[in-house]
C-alpha cells in the first residue's frame, strides 16, 4: 500500500541539526570568533555590509559565521535583520572630501595635491601563495606618515574648476528610498545608485567588464579612488545642529568619461560614480562604470548594450532576490510538472497521429475536457 510522504517537520529539524554540526566542524579545533572574522577576514565583512546595506561589522561577522562563509547567504541574513530595524533619523550626506584617507589614487594625473597614497592594497603584491602565513608570524607595525593628510581635494573638483567635467550640484530634491518605495522605471539616479550600491559585486563586475569590451563603451578613466573613514552626522531638530554619531569606512570611485558633446551639451567629461561600504575597490569601480553606462539616455547615446539597459540591470543586480528565485526551483513543482506531463503526452499523441513517432503511449491517463 502506498503511503504519502509525511514528517516534513522532523526532517527539517534534523537537517538544521546537521547543518549546525557541519558549521562547527571538528570540535577539537577552537571555534572561530566574530572578532577574528572582523579583524582577519575584514574584506568579507565589508562585502556583506555593503550588499546587505547595513554598517555593522560585528553583525556581519556573525552572519558570515552563521552562513559558513557563504557570502550571499550572509548578505541575506544581515539584510533580513536590517529590515526589522526601526529608523531613528536620517543622516546628512557623507562628505567624502573630509574623509580620513587610507588610500587615494588617481589614474588621470601623475601627481596631484596630497599625492598618491597606496594604502593597504593587494596591488603589486605578487600572487604567490605565502606559506609563512600558515603559522602566526610576527607582523611588523605599519609605517605611518607624519601628520594627517587633511582635506584632500577630489580630482573631480580639479576638473570642475576648469568646467571640463559636468557639474553635479545638489538639486535639493529629496532622494527616493528603494527600501520604502516600490520601484518605478525609469528610476532617478539616486534610486539607481542605491540599487547598484547593494547590487551583487560579481554581476556588476561582469557588466562593467562588458562595457570595456565594446558593449556600451564609455571611455573611462579612474579619476580617483579613495578609501577612508567618513563621519556620519545626523541633524537633531530639537538641538538645531548636527551631531556626529560615528565613522564608516567607505570606498568612493569617480570615473571620468569622455563625452564628445551633443546639440544640448558641450563636449566635456562626464561622471560615473561608485560608493560602497567598507574597502571594496572592485565593487566601487564596477558600480561607477555601470552608473555611467546607465546614464546613456541622459546623454542622448544610443542604448545598445545590456549594461545600458536600466530595467535589465537594476531588476537583476540584487543577489538576495536572484538567489531566492533561482534556488526556489528546488522546491516541489510536481503539480505543475504533472500538468506539463499531461500536456506533453497529448502533444506527442497528436504529433504521432500526424506522422512518425515510433512508439505509441498505450494509456493516456490525463485528458482534457471542456467545463
Amino acid at each position, binding site marked *: 500500500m502506498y503511503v504519502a510522504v509525511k514528517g516534513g517537520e522532523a526532517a527539517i529539524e534534523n537537517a538544521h541539526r546537521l547543518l549546525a554540526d557541519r558549521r562547527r566542524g571538528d570540535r577539537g579545533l577552537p571555534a572561530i570568533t566574530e572578532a577574528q572574522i572582523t579583524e582577519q577576514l575584514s574584506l568579507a565583512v565589508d562585502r556583506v555590509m555593503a550588499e546587505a546595506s547595513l554598517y555593522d561589522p560585528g553583525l556581519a561577522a556573525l552572519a558570515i559565521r552563521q552562513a559558513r562563509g557563504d557570502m550571499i547567504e550572509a548578505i541575506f541574513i544581515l539584510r533580513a535583520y536590517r529590515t526589522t530595524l526601526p529608523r531613528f533619523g536620517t543622516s546628512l550626506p557623507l562628505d567624502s572630501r573630509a574623509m580620513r584617507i587610507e588610500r587615494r589614487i588617481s589614474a588621470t594625473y601623475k601627481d596631484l595635491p596630497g599625492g598618491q597614497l597606496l594604502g593597504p592594497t593587494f596591488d603589486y603584491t605578487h600572487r604567490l601563495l605565502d606559506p609563512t602565513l600558515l603559522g602566526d608570524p610576527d607582523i611588523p607595525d605599519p609605517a605611518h606618515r607624519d601628520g594627517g593628510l587633511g582635506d584632500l581635494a577630489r580630482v573631480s573638483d580639479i576638473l570642475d574648476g576648469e568646467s571640463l567635467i559636468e557639474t553635479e550640484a545638489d538639486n535639493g530634491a529629496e532622494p527616493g528610498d528603494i527600501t520604502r518605495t516600490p520601484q518605478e522605471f525609469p528610476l532617478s539616479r539616486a534610486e539607481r545608485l542605491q540599487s547598484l550600491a547593494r547590487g551583487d559585486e560579481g554581476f556588476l563586475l561582469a557588466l562593467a567588464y562588458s562595457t570595456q569590451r565594446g558593449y556600451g563603451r564609455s571611455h573611462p578613466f579612474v579619476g580617483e579612488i579613495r578609501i577612508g573613514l567618513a563621519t556620519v552626522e545626523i541633524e537633531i531638530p530639537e538641538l538645531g545642529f548636527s551631531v556626529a554619531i560615528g565613522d564608516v569606512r567607505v570606498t568612493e570611485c569617480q570615473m571620468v568619461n569622455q563625452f564628445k558633446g551633443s546639440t544640448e551639451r558641450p563636449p566635456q567629461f562626464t561622471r560615473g560614480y561608485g560608493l560602497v561600504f567598507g574597502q571594496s575597490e572592485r565593487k566601487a569601480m564596477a558600480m561607477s562604470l555601470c552608473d555611467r553606462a546607465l546614464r546613456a539616455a541622459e546623454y542622448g547615446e544610443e542604448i545598445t548594450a545590456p549594461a545600458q539597459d536600466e530595467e535589465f540591470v537594476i531588476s537583476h543586480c540584487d543577489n538576495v532576490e536572484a538567489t531566492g528565485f533561482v534556488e526556489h526551483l528546488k522546491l*516541489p513543482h510536481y503539480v505543475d510538472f504533472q500538468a506539463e506531463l499531461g500536456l506533453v503526452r497529448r502533444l506527442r499523441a497528436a504529433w504521432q497521429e500526424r506522422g512518425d513517432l515510433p512508439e505509441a503511449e498505450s494509456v493516456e491517463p490525463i485528458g482534457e475536457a471542456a467545463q
Partner: protein
Amino acid sequence: MNAVTYNFAYLDEQTKRMIRRAILKAIAIPGYQVPFAAREMPMPYGWGTGGVQVTAAVIGPKDVLKVIDQGTDDTTNAVSIRAFFRKVAGVATTTHTAEATVIQTRHRIPEHPLKEGQILVYQVPIPEPLRFLEPRETETRVMHGLEDYGLMHVKLYEDIAHHGRIATAYAYPVKIAGRYVMDPSPIPKFDNPKMTMSPALQLFGAGREKRIYAVPPYTDVKSLDFEDHPFEVQTFSEPCALCGARNVYLDEVVLDDRGGRMFVCSDTDNCESRRDETGAQS
C-alpha cells in the same frame, strides 16, 4: 547586541499599514497589480515572501491558518511557513480546509469548496501575465492601462496553429471582471474554474516582484480562450488510488523504474477526510 524581538506577525506596524493599503486598492481594482514596497523576509525570495507578507498583514489572534504547497500541508516549505506563523503570531493552525479562516497556498486551490469569510492567499513568483511575451514592465504596464491584450491573444492563437491546442497547462491567464488579464499564479489550469464566483476572498502576493493583487468574492474569472477552442481542464482517466475520488487533481507517483505508477490526490487533506468518512461508514 540587543535581544532580538519581533512584532506580532513579524512585520512592523508601518509595514503592515502599507501592505493593508495595497490590499484594499487591489480589491477595489480586481486583477490589477498594485506595487508595494515588499520587505526582505527571513525566508528567501521565491519561497513565498509575498504570500507571507500578505498573510502577516491580514492575520489576527482569532484566525486559524492552513498552509499548503502542491496541495498538501506536509511539503517542507508549507511546514516551514506554518511554523513561522505559529512562532511569530501564535495563531492556531489546521490542515482542514473547512476550519481555516486564512489559507496560504502555493500552486493549488483546495478541492473542498471555499466559503464566505475565508481568505485564500496565493504565493506568486511572476505576477505579470504578459512577462514572457514582453519582459519590460514599462511596456506591460501601458498594455494593462490601455487594456491592450492583443499580444496574449496572438500567443494563444499561435499555440493553436502550431499544436492544435493552447499549450499552457498551468499559470493559465484569466481575465478578471471583464477588465484586467491576470496571472492566477502557477496553479494547474484544472483549478482555474474554482476561482470564478468564489465566495472566498482571493489575495495574491509577489514579494520579489513587489506586487499585490486580488480577486474579490463573487467575481467573474474567465480563462482566456477562443470560441472555436474553448477553455478545457485536465481530466484523469482513473480515480485517486487511495480515496477513489474523481474530478480532483491527481499526482502521478512513480512506483518503480519499469513504468509502474499510480495516481493519488494532490489535496491530501481532502483525500484523508474522504478516507476517514469511508472508514467510519464501513
